[in-house]
C-alpha cells in the first residue's frame, strides 16, 4: 500500500518538488503500478532466464584509447555557477 508519505520520501530522494495535488495523483499512480507488478508476480517464471537487457547483444567493448575531452570552458558551459574552473554547487559539508 503506497501512502502519501512514501511518495514524499521518493520525491525527496529524486530531489523533485511536488504540489499536494501531484502527490495525491502520484500516490494513486504508483499504487496502480504496484498492482500490475503484483499481477506479474503471479506468473510462473521458474523456467525463464532473468534478463537485464532487452536486446540480444553482448560484449560491446571499447579499446583503451584516449580520445579528446571537452575543453574546460565547454565542460562548464551549462553550469549555473562556476569558480576557478570548477562547478560551483551549494555547500555540502560545513
Amino acid at each position: 500500500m503506497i501512502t502519501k508519505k512514501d511518495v514524499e520520501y521518493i520525491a525527496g530522494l529524486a530531489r523533485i518538488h511536488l504540489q499536494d495535488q501531484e502527490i495525491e495523483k502520484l500516490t494513486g499512480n504508483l499504487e496502480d503500478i504496484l498492482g500490475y507488478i503484483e499481477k506479474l508476480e503471479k506468473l510462473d517464471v521458474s523456467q525463464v532466464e532473468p534478463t537485464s537487457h532487452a536486446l540480444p547483444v553482448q560484449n560491446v567493448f571499447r579499446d583503451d584509447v584516449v580520445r579528446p575531452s571537452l575543453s574546460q570552458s565547454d565542460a562548464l558551459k551549462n553550469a549555473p555557477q562556476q569558480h576557478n574552473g570548477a562547478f560551483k554547487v551549494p555547500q555540502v559539508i560545513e
Partner: protein
Amino acid sequence: MTTQTEKKFETVIGLEVHLQFKTRTKIFCGCANEFGNQPNTQTCPICLGLPGTLPVFNRTALEYAIKVALALNAKVSSTIKFDRKNYYYPDLPKGYQISQFDKPIARDGFIMIPTASSEKRIGIHRAHLEEDAGKIIHDSDIKASLVDYNRTGTPLMEIVTEPDLRSPQEAYDYLTTLKLILKYLDVSDCDMEKGSLRCDANISVREVGETILRTKTELKNMNSFKAVKIALEFEEARHRAVYLAGETITQETRLWNEIKQMTVTMRSKEQAHDYRYFPEPDLVPFIVSTEQIDEIRQTLPEFPEAKLNRLKNQYGLNDYDANVLVQEKAIANFFEDCCKIYQEPKKICNWLTGAIAAEINSRNNDIVQLKISPQNLTALIAKVENGVVSNLVAKDILTMMIDSGQSADIIIAEKGLAQVSDDSALEKVIDEILAANPGVVAQIKEGKDSAKGFLVGQAMKKTQGKANPKKLGEMITRRLLNA
C-alpha cells in the same frame, strides 16, 4: 563490577579497499585517466552524464579486474552485468553510479597474510567493478562546494574482505600484503596520497565465545595504512568502553579526524542511504569465457610470496634479505639480473639494500630510472672484491656512476681512484705518518695496540681512501716490529 572489567573482548574487522586502475582511459568513455591536471579538463558528455549519451565498457578495465580477481584466488563471474546505484550528491553528475550489485565480478577469494608464528587466511567476500565519482573541494571562503569531474568515471575496483581480521595490526598487515600483490599485478599506482588506493573499515567488538556479530561501525577518511590502524585502535577501545559501561553501540558511519586523532559521528543526513539498485539499461551483459580467463591467468606475474620463497631457495638468501628485495618487484628483478652476471647473491643483495637503496631514497627515484645497469653494478662490486677499490671509495664511485651513467672503469681511470697497491708508495706514506705521530708510536710500543687504528686512519686520509686499510694495518705492524 569486577566481573564486568574481567570480560574478555574480541575485535572483528572487515575492510573495503577501493583500487583505481591505471588504464589509459576511463571505464566508460575515452577521456584520459590521469591525476593532477587542471579541474574539468578530462570530461566529455558521457562522464558528465549529459542526456542522450551512452557508456561503452573499456576492454582493458575488464582485463585488469579479472587479473585482480585471479590474484585474490576468487571465483570469476562468467557473466558481467552492471547496476545503477542511485544517490544524489554533487560528485556524481548522473545522479547514479554505475556499479555492480548482485553479481560482482569476483567472489569467495582469499589472501594469506604473515603472522608472528606463520600465516593466516583472510577471506575475500567479493570484489566488484564500478566508476569513481568526482572530487569535491570544500571552499569555506566562498561558502560553496567546488566540483572537479576529472576523476569521474575512473575504473574502480572495490575489494571487500570477510570479517576475518581480529586486530588493528592484522588489518594493517592485510593492507600491506594486499598492496604488494596489487603492485605486482601492475594494474594500479596503489598510491594512497593520490587516492588510487583507499580504505574504509568495519569494526565490531564482542565477548570471546559469542558466535554472532554485534553492532558495527563503519570508519572512513583514513589517508594512510597507519591511520587505518590507529583509527581501528581508537574505535576498538571506544566499543569496549561503551560495553563496559553497560551501554550499546549505535550502527553508524564515523569519520577519522587526523588532527584530533579520534573518530567522530558523520551527520545522519549524509548517512541516509537508499540506493535503489537496478540493472543498468545502458550496458549490455558481458560474457567471459574460461579460455579468456585462462589466457589472462597466463599473464599473471610471480606473486610476492612465491618470489620470496624462490629467492631464498635459489640464491640462499635469508628471510630478511629476501623480504627486503621482494618489497619492490623492480629491485627483485634487478637483483636476479645481477646474479646472472656475477654469482655473488649475498654481496649483490647487500649493495641493493644498502648503497643503492640509499641512492634511490635520496634521489626520490626508482631502480628503473636510476642510471645504473646490472652490468655496471656487478662490475663495481667485482672491483671491490678484487681489491681494486676500497668499499668506501666504491660508494663514491657508485654515486658518480648514477650521476653520469658511466661505468666504474671509466670513473676509476679518469679520477685515479684505483687503490694504491704499490708497496713503496704506501711505505712512503707510513714513513710520514710515523714521523708525524711519535706519541702514538710510543703508545703502541708500550702495548696499546688499539692506537694502531688511528695511524691507519691517518694513512687512509693521506691516500684519500685509496689504500686498503687491512694492508696498511699489516704494514704498520711490520714496521713497528722491525723498528
